[in-house]
């Protein structure tokens, strides 16, 4: 219950900070892209609408996850509101979990509205929606899983570092997480046992965001296989558990004077 209250408060705070204003930019972007690419390109109007729509959902979500996520804990400390919160019968773990779920709720609402906008744009473009268009939802789900992991990373760094450094670390993790397959390949190509093992360790240790990348496939109407949905859901859940647990652990040890 207390977790839900904190989560709801975090969500309301995000809305108050005009986070959802990005939806306006998203709507303009989709409308403009639909019109513009119809004029200047050939045969890719629908594909580009899906690609651009999903890429925007991902990028806007990522920006919100990083820039709100890094302030989740540090802002409360900076504003000294943490003292009044922790003086109430609220466990530190509940506070962290509530903060995490609150930002996740913001992202879910944001993504849901953007997805509805994307479907509206698709309907406007095609004058109909086919069953195969449901595949887009699969890509949206994977974007949400990716964002949930990014929020976890941001929350973890927010509990141990300053906002600027947290943003830098989270962004670095995101970039590295997209290059993990390459890093492992470089290790194999180096023909060096130590490098091969080190890169393999990194490959399994760091969050592999390449797993969630299905945007291009979905834009061609490809269906996401069930094993990938189950595998990625488990992967994200596992990673989030690790990150939130680590954040709680650090926060539990932290002293506030």
């Amino acid at each position, binding site marked *: 219950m207390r977790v839900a209250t904190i989560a709801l408060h975090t969500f309301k705070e995000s809305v108050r900070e005009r986070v959802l204003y990005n939806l306006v930019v998203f709507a303009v972007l989709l409308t403009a892209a639909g019109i513009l690419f119809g004029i200047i390109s050939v045969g890719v109007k629908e594909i580009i609408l899906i690609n651009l729509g999903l*890429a925007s959902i991902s990028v806007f979500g990522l920006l919100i996850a990083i820039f709100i996520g890094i302030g989740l804990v540090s802002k409360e400390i900076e504003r000294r509101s943490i003292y009044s919160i922790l003086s109430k019968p609220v466990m530190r773990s509940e506070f962290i979990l509530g903060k995490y779920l609150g930002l996740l709720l913001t992202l879910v609402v944001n993504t849901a509205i953007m997805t509805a906008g994307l479907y509206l744009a698709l309907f406007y473009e095609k004058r109909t929606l086919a069953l195969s268009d449901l595949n887009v939802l699969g890509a949206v789900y994977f974007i949400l899983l990716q964002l949930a992991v990014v929020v976890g990373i941001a929350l973890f760094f927010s509990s141990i570092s300053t906002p600027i450094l947290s943003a830098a670390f989270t962004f670095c993790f995101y970039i590295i997480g997209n290059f993990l397959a390459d890093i492992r390949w470089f290790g194999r190509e180096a023909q060096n046992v130590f490098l091969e093992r080190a890169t393999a360790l990194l490959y399994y240790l760091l969050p592999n965001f390449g797993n969630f990348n299905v945007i291009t496939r979905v834009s061609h109407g490809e269906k996401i296989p069930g094993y990938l949905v189950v595998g990625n859901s488990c992967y994200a859940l596992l990673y989030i558990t690790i990150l939130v647990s680590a954040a709680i652990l650090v926060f539990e040890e932290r002293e506030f004077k």
Partner: protein
Amino acid sequence: MTALTPLAARRRFIRPMCGILIAAGFLALWPLQRSIDQLQGAQAQFADVLYLSSGTTLRRYCLGYEGLLADVYWTRVVQYFGRQRLAHSTRFELLGPLLRITTELDPQLLTAYRFGSIFLAEKPPGGAGQPQEALQLLRRGIVANPDYWRLWQDLGFIYYWDLKDYRNTSRIFRIGSERPGALPWMRAMAASVAAQGGEIQTSRILWTEIARQVDNDAIRQSAEAHLLALDAEQQITALNALLDRYRDQQGHAASSFAELVVAGYLPGLPVDPTGVPYVIGAKGRTILGPRSKVDLALLQ
């Protein structure tokens, strides 16, 4: 009324001043940028430069947004091709590399293979006149999309139309006809090309199929122009035969089609598919009227 303090008075003056400066600044930006553009001249125009030449490398750096980047590159292909055509240029050096990057970024972007091969294969000034590049592009497309039979159709079309290689055309149509979902006419075309080579009827079936299936106006217009040219060529052949018969039977060559009409060889003055009357040329053969919109060069 209370008198304003010096600070308040200054503030009252500063605010409108700032507003004016901002507005004036924005207004001045427009002519300034225009003059810079004029001074830069042609150098400031869009440069046809490939900053990155490998789609595979680009794919690694785009953090999972390769589909979107492929769409952008495809749009660049369309814009580049259109610009060169509008400028009546016969140089299309970047077309092949741009198409390669696009399809390396998104190997499933079928539009890029299908339209791209037409852009590459078509003879100048209509296209780049690079049928071998077009074949390579389509072969890459077939490797990435082995079950998509239309790419085999496009491959066969280039062998037939641009390379006049009827043996390979027949072979390609036959292989393509065995792909899932291939329409029955592919098998018929394989047999027809093998038997008759470059017959007009075979060309007509191919162009009709292209005109029917594409959803792009420029390519449909091109297919329709080819069909008009084929019709005109068929009519010219028939009219020339009639002119020969007239000369043999009347003992002299006709100087105009009106003579054939008067003699009862024709019911009226013959017109081409665009409605412009045919005329008899200096060598006594049928040629298109000066205002005709039919382009027989398309059939060369």
